[in-house]
């Protein structure tokens, strides 16, 4: 070895191109990981918490066809679509399957007055304002944000509920408009040609003077 002792080994020739390659690809990789991994489509969509009672929307809203508003009766008047009080369950379950072990927590709640602790599925960030009533009264269906709840055994979060997602509709609301009497009909689809559908939506927008705000203050108030 002798005088060659202090010479860089041969592999060190790769350091410069290697560093350049890393420098060129890593930022792209980092952007991809953040955009893909931090997106609400990854972190929020598909959230299906375990509820204290295995209540099936597929049975009650789907098979039996009970209107969403039978239970979520504040949705047309308030910002918040209320989770029903135990009394609403007991309207029927005082008689139907009243001894079922699955319904036991409902009966307990009814007897003690202690509310059932349902787990919230759709939870917007605390700095955003959302009003259910203004949407359903103008013909934006439940299905636009909550998906086909009438087919869900257990409710999960179907949509991103992110700011970009809200703005998509606020920029172009027409595809989500329908006659307000049809908002709780989750299976409804426009029956007709694509051209007629466009006209139908445009007409509704006109009729209700729908001009959704895109100002920051619309939701961050």
């Amino acid at each position, binding site marked *: 070895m002798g005088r060659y002792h202090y010479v860089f080994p041969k592999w060190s020739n790769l350091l410069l191109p290697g560093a350049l390659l890393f420098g060129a690809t890593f930022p792209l990789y980092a952007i991809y990981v953040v955009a893909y991994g931090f997106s609400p489509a990854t972190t929020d969509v598909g959230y299906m918490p375990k509820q204290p009672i295995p209540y099936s929307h597929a049975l009650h809203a789907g098979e039996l066809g009970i209107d969403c508003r039978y239970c979520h009766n504040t949705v047309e008047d308030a910002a918040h679509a209320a989770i029903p009080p135990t009394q609403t369950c007991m309207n029927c379950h005082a008689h139907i*399957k009243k001894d079922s072990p699955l319904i036991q927590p409902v009966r307990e709640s009814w007897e003690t007055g202690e509310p059932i602790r349902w787990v919230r599925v759709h939870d917007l960030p605390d700095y955003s304002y959302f009003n259910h009533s203004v949407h359903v009264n103008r013909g934006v269906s439940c299905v636009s944000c909550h998906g086909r709840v009438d087919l869900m055994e257990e409710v999960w979060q179907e949509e991103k509920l992110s700011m970009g997602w809200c703005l998509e509709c606020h920029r172009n609301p027409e595809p989500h408009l329908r006659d307000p009497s049809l908002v709780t009909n989750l299976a409804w689809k426009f029956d007709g040609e694509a051209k007629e559908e466009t006209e139908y939506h445009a007409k509704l927008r006109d009729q209700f003077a729908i001009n959704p705000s895109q100002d920051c203050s619309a939701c961050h108030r």
Partner: protein
Amino acid sequence: MILTIVGSTFALLPPAIAARMRSEMSREPRIHIIQNMDNQSRWKAQQANPLFADGRAMRLPVEGTVARSEIRIDDHLERGRIMMDSQEVWATTVPAGLEIDQVFLNRGQERYNIYCAPCHGWSGLGDGPIHRRAQRLVDGSPSESYGTVWVQPKNLHEQMYVDQPIGQIYATITLGARSMAGYKAQVPVEDRWAIAAYVKALQLSETEAEQELDSATDDASMGGE
């Protein structure tokens, strides 16, 4: 070389985890990697608040107080009762301030279909989907009916209900009757009147149709003779 292979294998891990999170349902609470101010120390409607003994963030009205619009001094509006010859009787009209017109009846129909039709059926015959399911449970095996006790919801076209004044129908909707629960808490007072008016219209549609049918058959039989 080895370093590159190990490095890129590890680099694949975060996208793989994200892809898995995208494709599967999750029972776990949502993780917001960038928290911003998503969860602030305040309470929203119907949340639990450990600071109160009953654990509710929403407070019940203080005892002895009445919320705006909830004062009950109008017997006609609130109870469906009126004074006639110094006797309290069922009201036969809707209270002052409400008017039976097409808009009111449409509202009544919509509310009826939401709150009443599940049991009483869309045409009031007592054959709604809840009745049909409950009846299936009663008729089926006892191990699946879990103590279901069921009385068929009333057919609103029975003479007894056709004869009831609108005030009495309103009171039944409000307070319930026999096994039917009251809908006072679920349906606002004006809507309960709209439903009562719609029930009256529904009954009328049935009797009118019958009378028309009768007169039509009469005409037909007279023509035949």
